[in-house]
């Protein structure tokens, strides 16, 4: 038993004396949540636009002022001729150009119709779509306010409520996502690399000839990472709460228990990876491609899974993070209990047992 505690102590020293890695491990979740919270925004604000006003009468000036003062757009350039549009767009300085045809208000009065052209830079398709919608909204609003003859019938006023996340903060999605990602990163990736490292440097042999049992070697390797993962999980929850006001509406104990389950699962994957890889690079690339990329992409934390082709949806089902994210979303944001997440929990338990079983089977106590 004494040799075992000594072994665990060695592992702790290995990990915690590497200050640089420690700093980064704590830095990643913090930076990521801050960036997602403050930087990544899909809102339309102060988008640079150009206006080509070929009539420059009172009406077009009013509309222009209304558009500029909406807060969504800022006027970057007043164009003089249609030939300028293409160059301006290619420079990427403006995202949208609004073109009023000449004699605008005269045409409205005399012919009853005049055209406004909205040209958007659709190399960013979603932004382009939003820009058109916003501009249209402003134009319609202008018409409804200024034209008395407009029909007041059939004006629908939709009231929108954003359930679970009134402010539509992206953090609500990214805190669970970051947790799923960082726990995989630490638990699976670091474990697999650290075991592979002992293999590569030959120190694993030393451990194997020592009286410590293989099970003890593995658990000894794993214990420091469990602790580390847990601390980081708590930091993420605290940051979400104190910095962004992300509540933990459900049971905190359940949340921590589920995190523990997920950490165990990730560690068993880490051990499995290390048993099949000979060098750190191999372990790294397997973790990167088999774990990390799918965690980021196929877990639904940035991109909704429902929009993916069916084959990716099936693959996503095999990815543990997807289930973990569903679980924490339900517990943290919706405030649900085990009643709603028991299925996902069982899936995670099943995956953990599966990985652990193969890992133990594959772990060789001898060298080839």
């Amino acid at each position, binding site marked *: 038993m004494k040799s075992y505690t000594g072994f665990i102590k060695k592992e702790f020293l290995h990990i915690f004396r590497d200050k*640089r*890695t420690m700093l980064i491990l704590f830095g*990643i979740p913090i930076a*990521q949540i801050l960036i997602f919270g403050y*930087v*990544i925004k*899909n*809102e339309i604000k*102060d*988008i640079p636009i150009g206006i080509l006003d070929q009539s420059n009468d009172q009406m077009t000036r009013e509309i222009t002022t209304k558009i500029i003062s909406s807060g969504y757009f800022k006027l970057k350039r007043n164009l003089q001729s249609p030939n300028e549009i293409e160059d301006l*767009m290619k420079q*990427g300085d403006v995202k949208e150009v609004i073109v009023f045809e000449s004699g605008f208000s005269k045409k409205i009065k005399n012919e009853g*119709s005049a*055209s406004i052209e909205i*040209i958007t*830079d*659709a*190399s*960013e*398709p*979603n932004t382009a779509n*939003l820009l058109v*919608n916003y501009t249209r*909204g402003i*134009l*319609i609003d202008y*018409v409804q306010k*200024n034209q008395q*003859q*407009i*029909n007041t*019938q*059939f*004006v*629908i*006023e*939709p*009231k*929108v*409520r*954003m*359930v*679970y996340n009134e402010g*539509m903060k992206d953090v*609500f*999605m990214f805190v669970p996502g970051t947790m799923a990602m960082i726990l995989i990163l630490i638990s699976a990736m670091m474990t697999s690399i650290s075991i592979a490292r002992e293999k590569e*440097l030959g120190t694993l042999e030393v451990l194997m000839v020592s009286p410590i049992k293989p099970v003890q070697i593995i658990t000894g390797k794993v214990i420091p990472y469990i602790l580390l993962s847990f601390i980081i999980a708590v930091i993420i929850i605290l940051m979400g709460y104190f910095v962004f006001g992300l509540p933990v509406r459900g049971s905190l104990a359940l949340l921590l228990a589920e995190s523990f389950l997920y950490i165990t699962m990730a560690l068993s994957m880490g051990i499995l990876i290390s048993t099949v890889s000979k060098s*750190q*690079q*191999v372990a790294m690339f397997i973790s990167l*491609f088999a774990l990390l*990329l*799918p965690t980021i*992409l196929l877990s639904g934390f940035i*991109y909704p899974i429902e*929009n993916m*082709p069916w084959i*990716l949806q099936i693959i996503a089902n095999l990815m543990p993070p997807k289930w973990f994210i569903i679980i924490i979303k339900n517990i943290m*944001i919706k405030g649900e209990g085990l009643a*709603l997440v028991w299925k996902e929990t069982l899936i995670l338990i099943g995956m953990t047992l599966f990985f652990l079983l193969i890992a133990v089977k594959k772990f060789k106590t001898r060298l080839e």
Partner: protein
Amino acid sequence: MRTIFFIIQKEFIQIFRNKTMLPMIFVMPVFQMLVLLYAATLDMKNINLYVVDKDLSETSRQLISKFEGSPYYFITGFSFSVADGETDLKKEKADVILHITSGFEKDLVNGEKGDVQILINAINGVKAGLINAYTLNIINQFSLGKQQDGMLKSGSAALGGFDIRYRFWFNQDLNFKHYMLPGILVILVTIMGLLLSSLSLVREKELGTIEQINVTPIKKYQFLFGKLVPFWVIALFELAFGLTLGRLLFDLPIRGNLLLLFGFSSVYLMVVIGIGLFFSTITETQQQVMFLYFFFNIVFTMMSGLFTPAESMPDWAQIANHVNPLYYFMRVIRMILLKGSGFQDVAKEFYSLVVYAVIILSLAVWRYRKTV
């Protein structure tokens, strides 16, 4: 010069005899394109709509049929109880509830505002924003259509005579894949340049072989240059490979000058490989360099405007982006490929990267120690 040549030769031999390298070079782009591109889509389709129609009038049915007819919506439930809808929302069976209150038609005809409530599951803010835009759009269209019908009868012109036309330039069909593909190419060459170069140097440190180099008369810059060139060549090859794949599989438009793109990429790669080499001079083990890479990669990639436009970021983030090489390349590759921008359009970014490359490479050479 001969020395550099031999170092480069050594590096190439080392890279290609490593069995993980070749699959990395050829499998990764295919994998990334197929998985990333299909996974990373914000094209909304299959929005699950739950309808609560308490009015059950002609007008409410017409409005609902607009949603039925839309390719984006899929009606998953229909009842008279909002609570039932909310249960489905909670279970994620529905993304959005459309609640039409009773008296909807009467209000509309009487010139009062019709009451429609929309409840959106907003845990994923980005998705909720899009659903919101789509839903409001359909309702607005519907309301306008009805108004026009009414006005045609009374003889006045629709929308006060405003004839609004849209034109989506550079990407008429709003194809999200064409937007993401250049971004994926950026990530691809960045991994190749930054990660592989830094790993290769640190590995020599860890295994001790670097001391053998250090005792030779090879100069610092020669050694680093020898490390730089192979990954530079591989990454450029990777870009060509990725472009070809994108062109063949996804019909990626290449509107600009390819020579300009490769010229720009060459400078960009100098920067990222420089960063990679600099990283490896300040770390001791592959694990450290891996995590360092990871940290910067996450920060750089997220801030580069890969999935949200860099222009909508707060001012301080836009200033911080000046030291983010991915930001320049992300912007320029899209400009060249999708918009056909020429050199004068990207000149500012080009010169910025040249300065960046000079600084970071000299920093790496300065920081590299031949002594232990």
